[in-house]
């Protein structure tokens, strides 16, 4: 098992009612697997996940990227800075 620190921002944080949580995933889990687990753990996030990107350790990551124990996984809704 690996433990992943998940950070939630903006509409995702509001929907979840919290800014972060921890996920326990099987060894070798991908970003995609983490997203699925996140939608199961916090059902209020499910409707937003199709529009959500992810970053691992502060760098954008694709769905196939493999996570390792202790990674920081950020769930990133469409950005709107500027």
């Amino acid at each position: 098992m690996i433990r992943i620190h998940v950070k939630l921002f903006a509409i995702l944080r509001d929907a979840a009612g919290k800014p972060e949580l921890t996920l326990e995933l099987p060894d070798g889990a991908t970003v995609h697997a983490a997203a699925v687990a996140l939608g199961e753990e916090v059902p209020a996030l499910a409707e937003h996940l199709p529009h959500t990107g992810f970053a691992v350790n502060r760098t954008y990551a694709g769905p196939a990227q493999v996570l390792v124990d202790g990674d920081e996984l950020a769930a990133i809704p469409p950005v709107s800075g500027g």
Partner: protein
Amino acid sequence: MPASPDLILLSPAPLDCSAAVAFVTDPAAGAIDVFLGTTRAERNTAGQELTALDYEAYVDMATNQMRDLATRARAKWPICRLALLHRTGRVAVGEPSVVIAVSTPHRADSFAACKFLIDTLKVEVTIWKKELWHDGGATWVHPKTT
């Protein structure tokens, strides 16, 4: 991380345009372009007026991204100095949420680099705005293209 030659700042304090211009002033530059993004007055479909935008950032990642943007701009244009400042928190109507200043030897490059920085910042950097309405309502702005 090596010291950056650029002024990169993500901060809850009001942005100081004069300080950005002073930072990029350089004897080798003949041109400075400065872009300010300001909160524009709006009215929503319920007839409510916008009072402010409230900016949230994934600060560590956004700061890295802003440094990376500066590096990419320097690879494309002969930039003398560069300042890239963005607010977090509440930015009232008329106030700046972003200030970008770029100095270059010739003017076309200062315009092109400044435009690249704001265009790219808006689609890449992990910052989000929430619209705060006069009746206390609030709306996250999340363009529907991820």
